[in-house]
């Protein structure tokens, strides 16, 4: 196996012209459609014909109704509410929880899906629960009081030792063995390449980790950490902020990091956290991944993670617990206006009854992504903000129910996170890792594939064109590569497609003007809370955006 990266493109993201986009889109979708037809005509059963499952994703019908401005039924009722939260992902639920905590009772959370959770959604079958998106949280920065409090409330942190270090619940700390990598034909322990790696490569890997360790503790001239969470707490020092204006790939080149193994690893990390390789993310974001997390624990290593079968769906349920009665699902907000009487009028379609209601709210928290908000706020200008500059990475998540994973003769056994070197996916996670049972006969594994081989718009279009069988061709091929003979052990594969999976921290987005403008509240009535306002799609950012927006509502409500 060579150390060459699997994708190969000139440096820097190239914006496509409209014409070239249309041409490429046509060729691509046509090609996929054609291959689907050929498949059907040629007949024959694939190896995985026995596998049950379906292709699904976020409510595309509702999304398209919004995009294509389909006619909506005229509002037939109206409601008043003090605060309306649009979106029940982590940001929205966190905002709702904060309002409730501060004694508010007059608020509502609207969700267009029939379930809450956004990227922290999960599914359940007869074997296990499993994530449909985010699936873990690294142990948190000890000084992050709101988050530490939340984790203590929910029993994730059980107590503090006499040095003040948090004790994490042992059932939630990821069980050993944690990670393995299939490299040079061998499953090694850990994901940083090691097996069959030359001394020169090792030296570069060590040098990189020394750099990030140093940056972990680095502070800017304003006394703030160079990299922090939430990222808006990071230092304004130009020494660090200027790193946002070059790509991570260029930064690595400039600093003499050339080892193909190291570069593979760093690209894997970018894909894992940002859904796109180092080429498309800023150096600041690339380094943030390694240097922003400074958490320590009494009973775990500094880089430990906490996880559950349903992934961050577990945390989502905890956030939701106190505000359950305020949530209204299958409700699509499709139009927002600021009325003369100072109220915000939000038109909402009940997707089940197909009726519309107008909500008159004093304040609105838009805990929905900006590409959606743009459609809702079509009559309200957001000066200086250009949504077209935001890049959302499409993702494919496949949950496979397997009755056995064929084991390699040698090497590391099944871990929580299982990755193969130089493959398109970022590997799979064992949803049943936290099971204390001695032996499970069946398990669910969650396979993550960031669709980053093309520019996001093209990749998204191509993704929407593919059928279940065409996805299976991709998923099964890669699973077979990792575990020859696994196909016959797969009982079910449910595929979940995220068209706009997560925001990508592209060059100049995090510290550029566009993001600053995106965060600006409108008229002290409409506030925003979403990870795309950070540029980094992680639980901590969403959690803090929710609290920040809720606090803004409370501050302005009091005035």
């Amino acid at each position, binding site marked *: 196996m060579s150390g060459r990266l699997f994708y190969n493109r000139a440096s820097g993201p190239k914006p496509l012209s409209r014409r070239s986009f249309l041409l490429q889109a046509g060729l691509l979708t046509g090609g996929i459609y054609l291959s689907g037809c050929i498949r059907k005509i040629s007949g024959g059963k694939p190896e995985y014909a026995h596998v049950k499952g379906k292709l699904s994703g976020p409510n595309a019908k509702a999304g398209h109704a919004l995009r294509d401005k389909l006619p909506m039924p005229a509002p037939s009722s109206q409601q008043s509410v003090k605060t309306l939260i649009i979106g029940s992902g982590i940001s929205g639920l966190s905002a709702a929880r904060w309002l409730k905590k501060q004694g508010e009772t007059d608020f509502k959370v609207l969700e267009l899906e029939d379930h809450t959770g956004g990227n922290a959604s999960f599914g359940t079958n007869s074997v296990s629960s499993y994530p449909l998106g985010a699936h873990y949280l690294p142990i948190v920065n000890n000084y992050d009081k709101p988050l530490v409090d939340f984790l203590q409330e929910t029993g994730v942190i059980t107590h503090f030792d006499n040095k003040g270090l948090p004790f994490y619940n*042992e059932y939630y700390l990821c069980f050993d063995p944690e990670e393995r990598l299939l490299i040079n034909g061998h499953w090694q322990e850990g994901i940083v390449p090691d097996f069959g790696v030359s001394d020169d490569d090792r030296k570069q890997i060590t040098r990189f980790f020394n750099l990030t360790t140093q940056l972990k503790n680095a502070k800017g001239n304003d006394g703030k950490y160079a990299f922090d969470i939430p990222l808006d707490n990071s230092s304004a020092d130009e020494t660090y902020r200027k790193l946002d204006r070059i790509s991570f790939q260029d930064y690595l080149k400039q600093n003499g990091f050339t080892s193909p193994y190291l570069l593979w690893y760093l690209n894997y990390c970018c894909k894992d956290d940002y859904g796109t390789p180092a080429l498309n993310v800023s150096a600041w974001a690339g380094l943030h991944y390694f240097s922003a997390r400074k958490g320590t624990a009494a*009973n775990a290593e500094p880089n430990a993670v906490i996880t559950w079968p349903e992934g961050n769906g577990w945390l989502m349920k905890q956030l939701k617990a106190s505000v359950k009665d305020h949530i209204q699902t299958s409700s699509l907000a499709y139009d927002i206006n600021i009325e003369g009487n100072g109220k915000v009028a939000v038109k909402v379609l009940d997707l089940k009854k197909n009726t519309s209601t107008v909500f008159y709210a004093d304040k609105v928290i838009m805990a929905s992504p900006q590409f959606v908000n743009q459609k809702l706020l079509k009559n309200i200008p957001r000066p200086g903000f250009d949504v077209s500059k935001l890049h959302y990475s499409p993702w494919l998540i496949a949950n496979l129910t397997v009755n056995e994973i064929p084991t390699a003769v040698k090497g590391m056994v099944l871990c929580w996170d299982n990755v193969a070197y130089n493959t398109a996916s970022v590997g799979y996670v064992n949803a049943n890792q936290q099971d204390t049972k001695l*032996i499970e006969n069946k398990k669910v594994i969650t396979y993550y594939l960031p669709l980053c081989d093309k520019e996001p718009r093209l990749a998204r279009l191509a993704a929407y064109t593919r059928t279940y069988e065409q996805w299976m061709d991709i998923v099964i091929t890669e699973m077979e590569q990792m575990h020859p003979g696994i196909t016959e052990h797969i009982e079910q594969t449910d595929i979940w497609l995220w068209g706009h999976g997560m925001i990508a921290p592209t060059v100049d987005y995090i510290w550029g003007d566009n993001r600053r403008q995106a965060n600006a509240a409108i008229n002290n009535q409409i506030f925003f809370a979403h990870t795309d306002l950070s540029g980094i799609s992680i639980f901590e950012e969403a959690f803090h955006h929710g609290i920040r927006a809720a606090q803004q509502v409370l501050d302005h409500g009091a005035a």
Partner: protein
Amino acid sequence: MNKKLPILLLVSVFIIATCGLIYELIAGTLASYLLGDSVTQFSTIIGVYLFSMGVGSWVSKYFDKNLLGWFIRIEILVGLVGGTSSSILFLVFESVSSFRIILYGLISITGILVGLEIPILMRILKDRFEFKDLVSKVFTFDYIGALIASLVFPLLLIPYLGIVRTAYLFGILNVLVALITCVNFKHEIKGAKYLQGASIISLVALLTGFIYANTITNFSESLTYSDTIIFSKSTPYQRIIITKKGRDLRLFLNGNLQFSSVDEYRYHEALIHPVLQAVPDAKHVLVMGGGDGLAVREILKYPQIETVTLVDLDKEMTKLFRTNDMLLKLNNRSFLSPKVTVINADAFSWAREQHKVYDAIIIDFPDPSNYSVGKLYTNTFYGIVKHLLKPDGIMVVQSTSPYVAPKSYYTVEKTLQSVGLHTVPYHNYVPSFGEWGYIMAMNRPVYKVPDHYLPGLRFMSKQCLEQMLYFPKDMARVPAQVNKLNNQILVKYFEDEWSTVL
């Protein structure tokens, strides 16, 4: 007169004699494998077999007409019964209450059929030979066959074919005799076609058995185990193998030795008595693992014990040790005691849901050789078990060898200490295991060394424990860390330390 007749039939005599003795040897060998005590088994088997042959000879006078036809029928029957005998015995071995009946039943049937062969054959040949010549020829071939059988059985057949395939092979030979006789004398026999068909079908059946004998006792397995495998079964959780060599019965789970019947008392006495002698009024005992019932056997020696709760994952395992005669003898029918409750459950999940407390807890899990079992050696698990232990109760953990794997051993101790338990490590020598370690753990800080032991123990005594509590320099305590769910260092240590010896 057909000239082929005498040679062909004399070859048959030779084969018949060989087969007859082979079946007898198979029955005797299987009986002593499965039931133990080879002298008694062999002599009763031979007795019953010879007596049945006598019955067969006596019955032979009732066969009057169509003697060739009867000879062929008997050959086919001998082939079928003898050929499948060892498979049948292996398969029914589990439900052992009927095992002896089936064993002696099969021996009797084979004996009767073999007993019929020679008299009928002699009567077939009597008109074609002078009597003194006939007697001398038939018995000469009979005894030569017996000699050959007694030599090839232990030297070639058992080592290279195994006992199941040997039986099938000789069953096939018997049926071949029937078939050849049938083909050669089809004009002299009534219903030759029907007999020919029957022999061919039997031949195919026996051949199939010969080919698939592997599924009955795995031949490759019998190569990896130096002793004879008398039982093997794959359960959803593990592969159970029982081997026997002389008086030594051994249990293997997934290829790892669990006990040898010769010295297991050293292990189980050491596991149980230092705990129970120190908790004189113990009434309720919990055993986790130990699905062989041997630890429970030791516990039941204390009359004041009211309940023993045993939690073992594998239903097949506890069933085997509750039903098999030989194993019941070994564990003194401990699972049949009304005081004992067997729960087939996953120990970790089961323990999490319990509230009842116990005077003594015996933890007898397999060694931490993989991450699944490793979970049962973590601080989280010991924390749960601690809640099931009465304030003045004692628990004990089998903790691998402090000689071969000191780091692993002291990791278990450190992990027990990390949940606030006081520990008392001790060790003894178990020949089949080597130097072995145990760790007692308790809430109170002091372990009072018992002054005396139950009468009748073969190993434990006051002086013995004194030695067991002493750790020589080559097993002295080494620095260790806590084994946790999120950092299973024990599995890594265990693998490292044992890989250097194995």
